[in-house]
């Protein structure tokens, strides 16, 4: 595979962005969609090609230098790409899922006046995301890291007439930036420690460090702050649910399948560093677990179809971090992949529902859609099963693998994971049942317009459904007599980590029977939730209460997302605004007081001097004599 073709992978979406972005007024809508989609499909094809070439060339990673980006003193930050197992996997997910979502968007956004702009942004997003995974050093990753944040901002605030959406967009960008600062500080520490930001150099130098070296811990913690921002972990997760303000395909692409997994990607990429810092990993696991449980619990009571999915995303990302915390890098990656499939599918399905419901997002106003939207329903069902971890769909395998590793590592976290799994299953089926079962609860007008989405939307749904159903088979655990293709493929990535921290990479100590029990537990709780949800929402046909109705305190707390937004508002936003006002009115005044005070002092002294100038000759002579006397006294007598 020639270098120029590799370069084209990110370049094609960039071209698509430029064409659509510059000419979004003059290019006809049909062409816009085709240009945008073709750019991504092209990238996808090239990625596949690259993957094949890589595998057939014996899976040897290589760095593709392009040019020297920033050269300052001894520090050189090249603009170069690294092709290895990890980047290739990410490439395929991003371009693959991305392509589907692009195609889907042609139908979904057809009637939007910002059609061209939308495709331009999507392409730009892919460009940055591809840079993020392709870069051969942390700073290139940072380009993508910030770039996707920007695109997220642009796309969340896509309908920019709405102030709430704009606020959500801004919140996303700023929260991401909080993480980015951590990332940046991590990079600085890396520069200070290793004198380079190139992965290969950093990692090879890192092998010389001891496990638990404070510098490495600092670096990994800093980087993890970045991951918390991008991957929406506690405490930086609140932007993600708000990000649902964007068009649904955006939610699918950015806020489910790709961008939010950047944090996972980064940790896996830096696995050498993290393997050297078990205490950081401890934190990664704890935060992941807490997020998984916390977000899932919020999801239980949400009524906005996209919000439920959003919290579920946060929660699933928490799972991935739990996995990372247990050094189950491959398992987390596995979950990234399967999650990309089913979460994209869920969002697109939700989009299809919203599309059909004339932009209604509240599940309390839906119901009984399965007959009107059969394809959407079926695919949504598959995705729901997949995310709930019910075999044999994709989610089962990946989640199970994570839970198995977590169990080995930390039993308490495993319990948390299972609890999360229980909730996940419940709210997902709640969502499914409320949306597709029972009677239609929307307005007559909405009912009249109900229709299955066009082919451009359903075809991606079907493809993703197939992937969600079968995707798990790339990583069947040994216990189920399969081969873990993914783990095998990715195993060279951990060569260095294995050297420095061999215990972490020993084969599992769990016996097969133990593994079966673990699987049974997680599947069992999922099924349990399914049944409970079925009873509640299909048999009893209960519908969540409208907002006006009083709720119990706990319900209220959960429903209002534990008031975290309000807390942040009270702790950060308001004081900051107040500080700003105070500094502006008093701080500036106070500082200026010294400047103006100097002027006043002069004026005051001037006033005094004025008084000495009485106009009376006698006074003047007196002053003169006084001066003479003082001088004579001073110089002659003292």
């Amino acid at each position, binding site marked *: 595979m020639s270098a120029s073709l590799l370069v084209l992978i990110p370049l094609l979406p960039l071209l698509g962005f430029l064409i659509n972005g510059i000419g979004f007024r003059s290019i006809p809508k049909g062409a816009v969609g085709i240009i945008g989609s073709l750019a991504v499909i092209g990238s996808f094809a090239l990625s596949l090609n690259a993957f094949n070439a890589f595998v057939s060339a014996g899976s040897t990673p290589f760095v593709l230098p392009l040019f020297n980006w920033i050269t300052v003193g001894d520090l050189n930050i090249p603009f170069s790409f690294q092709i290895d197992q990890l980047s290739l996997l990410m490439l395929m997910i991003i371009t693959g899922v991305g392509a589907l979502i692009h195609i889907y968007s042609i139908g979904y956004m057809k009637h939007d006046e910002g059609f061209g702009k939308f495709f331009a942004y999507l392409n730009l997003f892919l460009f940055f995301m591809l840079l993020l995974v392709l870069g051969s050093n942390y700073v290139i990753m940072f380009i993508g890291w910030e770039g996707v944040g920007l695109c997220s901002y642009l796309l969340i605030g896509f309908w*920019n007439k709405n102030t709430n959406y704009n606020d959500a967009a801004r919140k996303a960008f700023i929260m991401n930036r909080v993480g980015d600062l951590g990332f*940046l*500080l991590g990079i600085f520490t890396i520069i200070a420690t290793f004198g380079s930001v190139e992965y290969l150099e950093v990692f090879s130098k890192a092998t010389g460090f001891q496990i638990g070296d404070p510098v490495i811990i600092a670096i990994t913690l800093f980087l993890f702050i970045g991951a918390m921002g991008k991957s929406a972990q506690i405490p930086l997760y609140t932007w993600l649910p708000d990000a649902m303000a964007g068009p649904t395909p955006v939610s699918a692409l950015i806020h489910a399948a790709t961008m939010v997994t950047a944090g996972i990607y980064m940790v896996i990429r830096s696995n050498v560093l993290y393997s050297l810092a078990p205490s950081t990993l401890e934190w990664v696991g704890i935060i992941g677990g807490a997020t998984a449980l916390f977000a899932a619990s919020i999801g239980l009571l949400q009524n906005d179809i996209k919000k439920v999915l959003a919290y579920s995303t946060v929660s699933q990302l928490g799972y991935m971090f739990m996995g990372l915390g247990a050094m189950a890098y491959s398992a987390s990656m596995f979950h990234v992949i399967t999650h990309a499939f089913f979460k994209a599918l869920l969002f697109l399905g939700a989009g299809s529902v919203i599309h059909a419901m004339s932009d209604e997002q509240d599940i309390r106003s839906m119901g009984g859609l399965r007959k009107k939207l059969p394809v959407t329903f079926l695919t949504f069902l598959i995705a729901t099963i997949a995310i709930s971890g019910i075999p044999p769909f994709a989610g089962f395998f990946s989640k199970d693998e994570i839970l198995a590793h977590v169990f080995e590592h930390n039993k308490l976290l495993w319990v948390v994971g299972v609890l999360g799994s229980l909730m996940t299953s419940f709210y997902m089926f709640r969502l499914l049942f409320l949306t597709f079962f029972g009677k239609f609860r929307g307005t007559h007008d909405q009912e009249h317009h109900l229709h299955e989405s066009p082919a451009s939307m359903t075809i991606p749904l079907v493809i993703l459904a197939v992937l969600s159903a079968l995707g798990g088979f790339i990583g069947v655990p040994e216990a189920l007599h399969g081969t873990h293709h993914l783990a095998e493929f990715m195993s060279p990535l951990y060569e260095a980590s294995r050297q420095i921290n061999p215990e972490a990479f020993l084969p599992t100590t769990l016996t097969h029977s133990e593994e079966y029990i673990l699987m049974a537990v997680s599947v069992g709780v999922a099924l349990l939730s399914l049944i409970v949800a079925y009873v509640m929402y299909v048999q009893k046909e209960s519908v969540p209460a409208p907002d006006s109705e009083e709720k119990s305190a706990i319900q209220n707390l959960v429903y209002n997302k534990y008031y975290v937004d309000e807390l942040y508002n009270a702790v950060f936003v308001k004081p900051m605004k107040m500080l700003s006002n105070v500094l*502006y009115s008093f701080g500036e005044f106070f500082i200026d007081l010294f400047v103006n005070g100097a002027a006043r002092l002069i004026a005051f002294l001037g006033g005094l001097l004025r008084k000495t100038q009485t106009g009376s000759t006698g006074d003047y002579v007196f002053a003169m004599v006084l001066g003479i006397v003082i001088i004579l006294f001073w110089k002659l007598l003292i």
Partner: protein
Amino acid sequence: MLTLLLILLPIVAGVITLVVGANSAKQVALIGALAELGLALFVWSQFDPAAGVQFAFKYNWLASAGISFGAGLDGISLLLVLLTAFLTPLIILSTFGHTYKNGSAFYSLILFMSAALVGVFAATDAFVFYLFFEAALIPIYFLAAVWGGENRLKITFKFFIYTMFGSLFMLVALIYLYYQTPGTHTSDITAFYQLQLSAKSQGFVFWAFFVAFAIKMPLFPFHTWQPDTYTESPTPATMLLSGIMLKMGVYGLIRLLLPIVPLGLQTYGMLAVILSVIGIIYGSIIAIQQRDMKRLIAYSSFAHVGLMAAGVFAASTNGLQGAIIQMLAHGINVVGLFFVIDIILERTKTRNLDQLGGITQMAPQLSVYFMILLLGSVALPLTNGFVGEFLLLSSVFAFNGWLGAIAGLTIILGSVYMLRLFQMSMFGSRSKWVEGFQDLTFSEKAVLLPLVIMVFWIGIYPNTFLTISEPAVSHLLQLVAK
């Protein structure tokens, strides 16, 4: 000789502008500024980064006193001269939508200003440096005071006296240094570099320089003139002030303070960095709640320059290179932002964010340019702001981790106030003030497009510029380390 030409050309152009009268003053001034740009580009093409000071010119000014009119360009100077030459025509072009009373005086003052700025950057003699440093103040004062807003008299007067006050300290320091030179005294800057001053006198010179440059840039807590002046000045003057003139301060730190008083830096560098970092945070926080767009950018500029200063005081390759590239980036961004604000002001007659909103619906092109400049300003990677801030923050971080982390808050706070600015003006529902808002005209695009191109050029391939200043910076740092 070329350096002298670079200084003289705008003066000549300014005089011609003054003579031709108001009707064609704009055009003549633009041609003059473009000629200067062409000359600067030519100089660039002839420039060899590794060769130290080039195109040097020396005229014995005060032969008996060893003061000569010395000018020449090294990498750092060249970059700033290029910046000046690049921005001046754009600033002139940006006024094409306006008619200023006494146009010929207006434009000739801009050109005189530009000459003085080039003079500051090119000076190789300390007194020549001082001379232009002060001389630059006169045209900008008149620009601001004659064509400014309502409160201009008081505010510009304060600005003038305040900055003058600072630079007089520099004069004292320079005279002192001059008398420290051995043998027949000389005021050649390189001779100052060779001085071996005692720690005590270095401390004294350090603070004299610090105050002079801190007021000029401005740094906390010497900044109170700045927001008012930026706000009250006519936009071209604001552009000159923020785009180029504040760079004189940063340049002064690099050119004079670091290499002449390394011991002073050692002793007080920490304090200076702390002040700079306070400025970053202080300015950013204040910017968050500003309603006046110009004032908002003024505070943001204050914050940005604080970071540059922090990087310079950190005195590392990263810091200096970062500061230099950030000077270019900041100049470009801030000029662009002020221009966008001027366009908005021109069309809506208001700068108050509360009264604006929804402009993007009326003027998508404007909003795209605005967005790009803003992204540059919040240091998004691949835009010009990133390279500088990355290097600067890394240097401050290397200097002191805590300070680096605190300074790093700028990227968060920066996005807070900048996005607020963008959202309140561009997004949301259309306010009555923006009814009938026209998108960019050709001449406006002609200003913004070059700026945006530079935003990306510096962002994507900063090495073009970094390599120019690299040898000069490492030379300077050797002096600091001596």
